């Protein structure tokens, strides 16, 4: 503004102390000046009112330490417009784009900003640490054809003043924009967040002449402000709690109050403020960065001086840089979350493929029996598993297991179980010994991650038609024969992974003629209907009884079993994996088995 002030006669500058009587006089001077310049009476009176409203605000809200500073009216008259700038020393305020009248028509205050906007064509407000500048302009309704040479000079002065202000603003905009373009290109080349932030804030410090800065990230809106970048290399400041009672920290106050906080020699930092690490005196501001209404962090920036640190134009640049940084960091977070989501999805797909590959491609075909198995996961990767192997003597060993939990860890334990199960076929003749051995192998790994496995192992001597069953906390198997009786078989035993030295027991029985035997996981009997009730064993036993009595082949038993479970759920999503192994005697009905 130096050019504006150094050319008397081309404009009007009224500087006055902050009291209401002086505002009245100064406003009247502006009106007289405008009338002398040929501005029509109505418009001059309007400007008098605008000056009064702006001047009253400047006086009524002046900062205590600025009582010796003068309020200024700077007026320029051009052929087609009038410009007014009001310089005040208040704490400033957030200018609304279109101030409204008070909601309560009986409110006795709150119409000043509305009047200033209504009586002018444009309002701009630059907020600085030492002064604020309110800039207003209005087109003139009537052109004065008999303007004098003096009024031409005044017009030129006003134009020059406007250009000066615009140049200052444009210079700031240019600095901001050129930095934004350069750094955006860098981001697109994959620059890291931390490095980008540091370089971006270094650029800002250079543009504004700042001597120090601290950028903090909000861990979550109600959590902590943690140090993310600092002008002092290697400096990591302690986190600041974001609680409303935290009055020591200017950064916490800016974040909590959602507005800029200034500090300088006349309004120093509080004794406990962590910014004191930059020494004293300090002057600057802390700007809270919000993206989409959510607090992203804070930027404290300043100089080591008692004087106000930044001009209004520099404050605008700081806002632009800080808010751009906020948007970039938010975008980077979204990008990382997306990539992580993609990686997780891919990992789950791989785990699901592994799990599917664990299930036997073909089941053994022991003489006189047919084996069928099925597994369906409730999530992408489940913890259910079954397997079957043929021993050298022609007998078969069946295993079914349910790893507690789902997802990748459950699939990994299912894979480990399968490896161990197949490693000791010699123990297959004694399911209880095989379970003990499996428990000893798996216990430490399961115990470390607080997981366990329920399992059931069955040995079928197809020649003697005998069955041996051992179970580790697993649900009973169901066996039915031609006699129409279905039984649950449930030897006791702790799940694998609970106690390292668990010994298991074994139950033996002869298969009834025309038997149908179902080994299952709890996803079948614990299927829930919409009322939350469990399916239970009875419907399964009924199904097997009928199947055995009718000599039903395993295909139709399987389809009836799945239909039974699905119908019971009435379309509800399954909450657990569903797995079974079905053993059906193939001797035709009516033929006495050998």
């Amino acid at each position, binding site marked *: 503004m130096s050019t504006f002030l150094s050319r008397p006669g081309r404009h009007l500058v009224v500087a006055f102390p902050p009291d209401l009587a002086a505002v009245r006089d100064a406003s009247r001077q502006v009106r007289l000046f405008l009338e002398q310049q040929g501005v029509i009476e109505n418009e001059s009176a309007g400007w*008098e009112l605008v000056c009064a409203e702006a001047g009253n605000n400047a006086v009524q809200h002046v900062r205590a330490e600025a009582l010796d500073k003068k309020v200024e009216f700077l007026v320029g008259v051009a052929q087609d417009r009038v410009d007014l700038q009001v310089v005040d020393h208040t704490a400033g305020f957030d200018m609304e784009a279109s101030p409204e009248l008070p909601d309560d028509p009986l409110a*006795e205050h709150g119409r000043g900003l509305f*009047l200033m906007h209504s009586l002018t064509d444009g309002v701009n407000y630059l907020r600085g640490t030492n002064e604020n500048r309110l800039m207003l302009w209005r087109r003139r309704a009537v052109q004065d054809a008999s303007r004098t040479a003096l009024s031409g000079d005044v017009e030129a002065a006003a134009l020059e003043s406007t250009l000066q202000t615009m140049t200052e603003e444009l210079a700031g905009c240019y600095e901001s924009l050129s930095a934004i373009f350069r750094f955006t290109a860098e981001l697109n080349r994959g620059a890291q967040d931390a490095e980008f932030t540091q370089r971006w804030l270094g650029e800002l410090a250079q543009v504004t002449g700042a001597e120090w800065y601290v950028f903090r990230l909000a861990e979550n809106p109600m959590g902590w402000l943690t140090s993310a970048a600092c002008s002092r290399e290697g400096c990591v400041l302690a986190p600041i709690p974001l609680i409303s009672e935290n009055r020591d920290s200017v950064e916490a106050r800016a974040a909590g109050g959602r507005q800029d906080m200034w500090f300088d020699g006349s309004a120093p930092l509080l004794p406990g403020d962590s910014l004191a690490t930059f020494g004293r005196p300090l002057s600057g501001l802390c700007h809270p960065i919000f993206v989409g209404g959510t607090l992203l962090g804070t930027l404290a920036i300043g100089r080591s001086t008692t004087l106000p640190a930044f001009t209004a134009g520099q404050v605008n640049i700081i806002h632009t840089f800080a808010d751009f940084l906020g948007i970039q960091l938010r975008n980077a977070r979204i990008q990382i979350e997306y990539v992580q989501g993609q990686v997780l999805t891919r990992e789950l797909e791989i785990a699901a493929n592994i799990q599917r590959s664990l299930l036997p491609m073909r089941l053994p075909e022991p003489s006189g029996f047919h084996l069928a198995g099925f597994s369906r996961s409730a999530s992408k990767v489940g913890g259910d598993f079954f397997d079957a192997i043929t021993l050298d003597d022609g007998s078969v060993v069946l295993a079914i297991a349910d790893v507690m939990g789902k997802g990748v860890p459950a699939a990994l334990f299912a894979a480990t179980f399968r490896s161990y199960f197949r490693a000791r076929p010699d123990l297959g003749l004694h399911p209880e010994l095989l379970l003990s051995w499996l428990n000893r192998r798996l216990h430490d790994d399961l115990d470390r991650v607080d997981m366990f496995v329920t399992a059931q192992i069955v040995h079928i001597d197809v020649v003697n038609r005998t069955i041996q069953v051992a179970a580790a906390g697993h649900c009973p198997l169901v066996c039915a024969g031609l006699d129409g009786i279905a039984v649950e078989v449930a030897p006791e035993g702790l799940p694998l992974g609970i106690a390292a030295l668990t010994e298991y027991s074994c139950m033996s029985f002869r298969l009834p003629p025309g038997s149908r035997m179902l080994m299952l996981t709890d996803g079948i009997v614990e299927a829930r209907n919409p009322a939350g009730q469990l399916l239970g064993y009875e419907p399964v036993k009924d199904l097997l009884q009928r199947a055995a009595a009718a000599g039903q082949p395993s295909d139709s038993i399987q389809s009836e079993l799945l239909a039974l479970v699905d119908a019971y759920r009435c379309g509800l999503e399954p909450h657990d994996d569903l797995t079974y192994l079905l053993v059906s005697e193939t001797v035709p009905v009516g033929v006495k088995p050998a």
Partner: protein
Amino acid sequence: MRTYTVGETLLVTEFENLGALNAGMLRDYVRASLKPGHRCIEVDLSQATFVDSEGLGALISAHKAMAQCGGIVRIKGAVPMVRELFRLTRLDQLFEFSPD
């Protein structure tokens, strides 16, 4: 600025402007002069060439005092520019206006 009573009306007159500088004075005068029998406050703005938002606030305060006893505030002799200010702030709906 002075006030006097004619019948049920409290007259407020003799001021050249009504703004931040003397709005408090108007409030004090009305508070001190208003009696239970008053049914109207008539504010004579015929000499006032300037009114600002603080002045409007003082008039609203007078309106609220009168509204409690069922009375009104009448603005007398407002010049066109001042009348325009009432229109702009929609306070022309709150007060009664009379010519000189």
